[in-house]
């Protein structure tokens, strides 16, 4: 009898072109996403070496990281950003790569547009010069972020050199409580494992909680895998995956679809497959989460107090520095803290379900006067859905405006920067010092927690408002 294999092993092993002794695997990449920030130097490298793009049809480009989120029809004001956007346009045209630039109907954040157009499929290997490429693992793909040298490798050879990571499985069974979203599940896992707890591993998420989750939710969870150090995370494909994909523009059609589904059904982890590390959690232990420190592992249930230094895994000095930056103290209660900004968006929580959730709380309420809110859809397709479903009206009635798609305040490369010292409840993925603007203080949370903060002007348990 052959040894039972995991989802990860099956997909990985199917993509090894060559094994190098005492070295990495030469690993084949099915789909490659590029954006304006991490690709120019890679294209420059091709030019310097005088080599070509091997399979241009396997690469897709979108502009998202430093695009403005208002007045996208106007020329981009910042000359450096404009220059990068121009470089992406020129480079993709030169090599014949699809380019969904600013203003294109399919433009949006790379990890939102890939899945919604059917590019991302189970069993694939997917990379992008962006660490949140792990998002695509929601489909049962092996997907992870790479550096610019590797972008150049993929462009020129459709391969990268990768040692096979170790395997971890995180299983959560049971039923989630009220107002607990996929973002809370992932923040909870990261707080339990710490920001480095999964370094060196590829994670499979298993159990009732993920089985019952929508594709949007699965994407949120896999997206954040990198925030505990994992290369990526994945969830076995099932009927939820297939029905999400069916009919999407670049998904297989007709006979090819049936053939693909038949293969995809063989992918899930077999009974008895082993992992290098396993964690089990109980869904009932997870309440709405919020972070209070400067790495995503420093989070807790919203009803809790900020832990003391001896309760966290980070060293005492680092922890004190972190709380100092945030202007918080050990043992303080988090609910009730006044906040200044709310950011709904990013490849973590910029999809339609996130806007539905946000709207469910602000409906019939008003935005707090002290709060500046930036609501940024992940793509034009999400933006249209928001309008079609009447969500925009709900948001407008409550005093909110919708911006145009892009990464926005997730990394603050464009004008959407949280000012120094201000507090932002953000649905993005990183609360590092200065991530949302120099001196900005970020509290990561779900769209429901963000909505509760937006209407009350302070950190508020969303369970009080549903």
């Amino acid at each position, binding site marked *: 009898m052959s040894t039972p294999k995991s989802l990860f092993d099956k997909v990985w092993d199917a993509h090894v072109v060559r094994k190098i002794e005492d070295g990495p695997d030469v690993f084949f990449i099915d789909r490659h996403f590029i954006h304006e920030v991490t690709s120019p130097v890679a294209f420059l490298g091709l030019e310097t070496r005088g080599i070509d793009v091997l399979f241009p049809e396997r690469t897709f480009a979108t502009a998202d990281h430093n695009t403005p989120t208002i007045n996208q029809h106007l020329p981009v004001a910042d000359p450096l950003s404009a220059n990068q956007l121009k470089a992406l346009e020129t480079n993709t045209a030169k090599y014949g790569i699809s380019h969904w630039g600013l203003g294109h109907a399919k433009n949006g954040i790379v990890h939102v547009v890939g899945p919604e157009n059917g590019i991302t499929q189970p*069993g694939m290997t997917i990379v992008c010069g*962006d660490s949140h490429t792990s998002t695509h693992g929601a489909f049962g793909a092996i997907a992870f*972020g790479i*550096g610019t040298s590797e972008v150049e490798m993929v462009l020129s050879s459709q391969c990268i050199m990768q040692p096979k990571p170790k395997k971890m499985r995180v299983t959560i069974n049971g039923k989630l409580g009220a107002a607990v979203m996929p973002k809370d599940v992932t923040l909870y896992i990261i707080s339990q494992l710490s920001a480095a707890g999964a*370094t060196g591993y590829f994670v499979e998420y298993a159990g009732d909680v993920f089985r019952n989750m929508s594709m949007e939710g699965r994407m949120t969870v896999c997206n954040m895998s990198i925030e505990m150090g994992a290369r990526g995370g994945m969830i076995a494909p099932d009927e939820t995956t297939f029905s999400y994909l069916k009919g999407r523009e670049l998904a297989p059609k007709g006979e090819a679809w049936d053939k693909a589904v038949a293969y995809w059904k063989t992918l899930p982890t077999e009974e008895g497959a082993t992992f290098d590390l396993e964690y089990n959690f109980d869904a009932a232990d997870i309440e709405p989460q919020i972070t209070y420190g400067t790495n995503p592992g420093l989070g807790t249930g919203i009803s809790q107090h900020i832990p003391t230094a001896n309760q966290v895994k980070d060293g005492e000095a680092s922890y004190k520095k972190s709380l100092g930056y945030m202007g918080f103290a050990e043992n303080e209660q988090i609910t009730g803290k006044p906040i200044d900004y709310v950011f709904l968006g990013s490849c973590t929580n910029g999809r339609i379900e996130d806007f539905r959730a946000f709207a469910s709380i602000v409906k019939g309420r008003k935005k707090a006067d002290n709060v500046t809110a930036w609501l940024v859809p992940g793509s034009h397709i999400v933006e249209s859905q928001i309008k079609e479903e009447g969500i925009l009206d709900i948001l407008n009635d409550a005093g909110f405006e919708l911006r145009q798609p892009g990464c926005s305040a997730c990394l603050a490369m464009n004008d959407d920067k949280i000012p120094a010292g201000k507090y932002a409840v953000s649905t993005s993925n*990183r609360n590092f010092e200065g*991530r949302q603007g120099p001196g900005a203080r970020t509290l990561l949370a779900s769209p429901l927690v963000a909505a509760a903060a937006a209407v009350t002007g302070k950190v508020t348990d969303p369970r009080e408002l549903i």
Partner: protein
Amino acid sequence: MAYDKFTVLTSTAVPMPIENVDTDQIIPARFLKATKREGFGDNLFRDWRYNGDDTPKQDFVLNNPIYSGKILVGGRNFGSGSSREHAAWAIYDYGFRCVVSSFFADIFKGNSINIGLLPVQVSPEFLDKIFKAIEADPKAELEVNLPEQTITIVATGEQESFAINGYKKHNMLNGYDDIDYLQAMKDEIKTFAEASLY
């Protein structure tokens, strides 16, 4: 992109005993707008190094003239966060050739090796010894020997070995990169691609 060959490096070191130094600190996102790979060293640790008005922050280690050298010694989980290779470029461009820590984030580690910056992972105890040695004498030298895969505190002779796979080691010793390797096996890759389902 060609880089300097790495064999044996003996140098003083710059200590940064902070954990979870993420790539947003190493090079903040607003400096990622270049389309060429040059000048990133100027913005290395920008927000820890300079005040808002661009005056140097006196208490930051890179602004302290008693510390210098080609080796950066960081706390646990160095290089976490974003995949930006610019972080490794910035460290390399500033003049470092080696980063020492008790634990590295994966992508940062891979990016560093790819561009010729050697990540040396040591035990927490040895890291502590290095910090103590530099604290006692800012001019204390470390020797990083890639052929032997050892790191030594020169003054005391205390030594530890570090791991690196044979393939990457060969590349670093010779200043080669993966693209050279992959270019040489294009036909094999094309055959593989033809059989691919996607």
